[in-house]
């Protein structure tokens, strides 16, 4: 049975067709619709090249025959249905595979360099081409998280958090390619699992297994903070061996009842933390007050915030990625669940440029690229890893990074990341 469909272009001006209702066969799939549009475009423009399109009905990607989709969404085939189309996202192109000596626990990339934290107690800096530039050794335990603080052409500031309960603030002289530990942030009583730098690049927050969040200054100074030592603790040689000057936290946020697995700054003055106690808590960074709590029913491994769509995405110890509205007052409403992984979701990251897209890494060795408008199936599966995926990142330049327990860091180029809203 044919069904009427008004095909409207949302994609770009150059792919616009006339806004006339078409009768489309009900059994047609994305490819058929794509052919139709291309024919229309070719009729209007002689030197049109074939472009593949993706189609949206009421904000949901069309992933099956039209009639099946409409049955599932309870849309009548008698009425005129608006089908939007966008240029099909190109598959991410694999670029580099960077070999490490041990499991990769964390990754953060900028326009020029990639910083990874590794289970061999080092943090490493790589160029985008996969060339090893620097190995930062100093921790006595596994490096759990890394972060860039500041970069300029001469020197960079970066952070590494480790299971040895410290966070080190490093200064990397790019020209001389020398690295120096400026500060050793001490105060946590457990492995520091997550760090996040605020948008002013002067503060950072850390979450630890000891259930605490601590806020530290990220500005290098020449002074050393006094550390009050427990009376019974012997003054060990550890003190003399320590790298950099001791730094103590500016503030401590306590409230979680289990280990904190992930922290981020969702705003200039707002910290969001995910924990093993099945909650995501939002804190006021200035006052240290707890603003609100989102309660789930599984341990949270990772959380990510997109300022574009103002949603939190969380990965937990089940198969689902859940989207939350951090501003909702009732607290525990999951907006959307993205389900396709078969193992724990260890890491999620929103696209910095696209309001609908995110990537996720999981213990099932697969990195998935999602569009929230297609919640039943991901856009692409990046199945390169041979072992658990532990970390993912997405840079503004459109680079997807994932590292895992197979000691490899995979980089993908994903060009079509411009948000298509309003185009």
């Amino acid at each position: 049975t044919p069904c009427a469909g008004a095909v409207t272009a949302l994609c770009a001006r150059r792919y616009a067709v006339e806004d006339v209702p078409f009768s489309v066969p009900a059994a047609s799939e994305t490819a058929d619709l794509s052919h139709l549009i291309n024919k229309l475009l070719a009729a209007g423009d002689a030197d049109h090249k074939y472009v593949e399109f993706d189609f949206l009905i009421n904000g949901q990607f069309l992933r099956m025959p039209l009639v099946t989709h409409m049955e599932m969404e309870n849309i009548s085939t008698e009425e005129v249905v608006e089908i939007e189309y966008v240029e099909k996202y190109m598959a991410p192109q694999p670029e580099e595979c960077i070999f490490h000596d041990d499991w990769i626990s964390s990754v953060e990339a900028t326009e020029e360099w990639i910083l990874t934290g590794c289970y061999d107690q080092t943090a490493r800096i790589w160029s985008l081409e996969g060339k090893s530039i620097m190995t930062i050794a100093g921790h006595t335990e596994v490096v759990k998280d890394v972060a860039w603080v500041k970069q300029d052409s001469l020197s960079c500031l970066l952070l590494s958090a480790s299971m040895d309960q410290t966070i080190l603030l490093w200064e990397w002289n790019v020209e001389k390619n020398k690295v120096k530990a400026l500060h050793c942030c001490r105060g946590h009583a457990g492995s520091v699992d997550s760090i996040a730098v605020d948008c002013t690049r002067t503060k950072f927050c850390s979450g630890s297994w000891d259930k605490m969040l601590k806020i530290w200054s990220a500005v290098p100074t020449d002074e050393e903070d006094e550390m009050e030592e427990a009376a019974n603790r012997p003054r060990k040689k550890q003190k003399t061996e320590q790298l950099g000057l001791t730094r103590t936290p500016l503030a401590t946020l306590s409230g979680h009842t289990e280990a904190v697995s992930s922290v981020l700054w969702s705003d200039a003055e707002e910290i969001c933390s995910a924990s093993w106690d099945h909650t995501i808590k939002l804190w006021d960074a200035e006052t240290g007050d707890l603003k609100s709590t989102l309660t789930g029913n599984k341990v949270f491994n990772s959380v990510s915030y997109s300022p574009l769509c103002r949603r939190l995405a969380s990965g937990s110890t089940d198969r689902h990625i859940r989207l939350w509205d951090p501003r909702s007052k009732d607290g525990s409403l999951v907006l959307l669940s993205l389900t396709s992984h078969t193992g724990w979701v260890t890491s999620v990251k929103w696209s910095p440029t696209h309001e609908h897209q995110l990537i996720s890494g999981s213990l099932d060795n697969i990195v998935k690229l999602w569009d929230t408008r297609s919640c039943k199936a991901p856009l692409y599966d990046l199945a390169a890893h041979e072992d658990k995926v532990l970390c993912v990142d997405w840079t503004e330049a459109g680079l997807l990074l994932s590292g895992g327990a197979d000691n490899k860091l995979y980089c993908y180029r994903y060009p079509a990341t411009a948000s298509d809203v309003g185009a």
Partner: protein
Amino acid sequence: LQDIRNTVGNIPMEWYQDFPHIGYNLEGKKIYKPIRNKDELDMFLEKMENPDYWRTVQDKMTGADIKLTDEQVDLVHRLQKGQFGDVHFNPYEPAVDFFTHEVMIHPVTNRPADKRSFIPSLIEKEKVSKLVHAIKMGWIKPRKPKDDTPTYYDLWAHEDPNSILGRHKMHVPAPKMKLPGHEEAGAAAPRHPGVRPALPTPVPSIPQKLAWEQQEPAERKLNFVPQQYRCLRAVPAYSRFIHERFERCLDLYLCPRQRKMRVNVDPEDLIPKLPKPRDLQPFPTTQALVYRGHTSLVRCLSISPSGQWLASGKDLLPRRSDDCTVRFWEVCTARCMKTVPVGGVVKSIAWNPNPTICLVAICVEQSVLLVNPCLGDKLLCGATDQLLESYVAPEEERVQPVQWVTATVEEHSKGIRLVVQHSKAVKQVTWHGKGDYFASVVSDNSNMQVLIHQTSKRWSQNPFRKSKGLVQCVLFHPIRPYFFVATQRYVRIYNLLKQELTKKLMTNCKWVSSMAIHPGGDNIICGSYDSKLAWFDLDLSTRPYQLLRHHKKALRSVAFHKHYPLFASGSDDGTVIVCHGMVYNDLLQNPLLVPVKVLKGHVMTLDLGVLDVLFHPTQPWVFSSGADGTVRLYT
């Protein structure tokens, strides 16, 4: 004849019984009763002698005797015969017809007809007018035409055609007779050469025939001897046919048949109503992580009190000597953080439950190693070392059942701090909740099987004077000073303060393998090698509250969760069964046990499946270690 008419009238003459007179005559004089002075004898004599006695009657009115005359006697006789009293009366005189059937020419009477015969009757007119008036007023209905339809009715109209009535309701069909078979058909008749015989020869041999003859007719399997015939045409008519029909009829008639009343119960109703597993979430459902690294079966598991680290020990003598290790894993990533070579078979491992002490007790061969894994908070690890080093030996040497040895420098670098050397192989170690005392079980038959050690004082003692059987495992009560000792069939509970036996639990199992206690302290579970799991409610009874037989093979390990109402059992069949075990604070409500999930994943190796199960201290996750050399986490 004197007229002695009595004037009393027709009254019962008995009224005058007591008077001398009998009434009054016409003049009003009393009539006296005749004098009767005859006695019985005189009466008899008179009866015998007086020839007229039979015709003498007594006049009741006067009391006088009257002798009946011949005419009177005749009259009596005639009346007795039913004849008329008058001899001359003829009742059957010929009748004379007054009106004859012949029409006469003259009227019988000469009377002229009345006037009223010629005028309409006034009375009739009144009656007719009354009727007419009544009909007009509708008081009288004119006669209806007669209904000709027959007046029979349906006797069974009000009966339900589907219901079965009385006798038919109780109808029991006659038992079916066996259909005739090959024996009756002269089974052994030679068949067509191409056809395979359906039966081996059913014709009995001679001893079989003799045996048949000796049997009681009721006991015979067949009531005739099968015979062989040349062909089917030669089979004669069955001679006992009528006889057997008759016996069958007798059977049906005389033998009471009864309908067997089967209780029609839906088997589903007999299953106790348990809540659905999905209402009992959270509980582990899927395998999340596999901890690979061990080369052969992983005998034991232990988890740090914070839930960040997992320790596993390997059993079975290794092929390479450097392979005897205890591994420490990061729980959330399955990363092996540390490998401590211990140089022997590890039978049991126990992490100190005190969160301020970082110490693991490991059973290796004949000794218990106290290992500081240096994982977690550096301060705590340092404090633990300090605590162990702060020991000051007592001045006089005490006799101890074991030897406490400080680790060598080389061992110290591996993390080993103290070695408690036993005389025999140690098979289990368990900590007291406070983390200072621990108990070890030695494979031995003597009273030295169970030893309790104090870490801070490096002091060991043997709590039992006598051996009560082969001790399988021991356990400290989480709150109270009780000590549980499981032998092969019993669990004994000792009070450590009073130093006496408090209770003895009968497990109803052949061989107890493992034991775990509910964090509340009032319930324990025992797994046994005969694939049973016994749940004891200590307040209820010394016998199992429930005996669960979910596993197909021997249970190796049982575990309780610290916070969630969950318990798990691992078995040789390669599965872990997680059950919901809710203990209520209300003493009247019995624990609710619901099996919720069977977790599979371990590969069977050497006929062994799961060797140890362990719950995460804070999350509803369960670890299992298997003979395939892996540790698995289910969430």
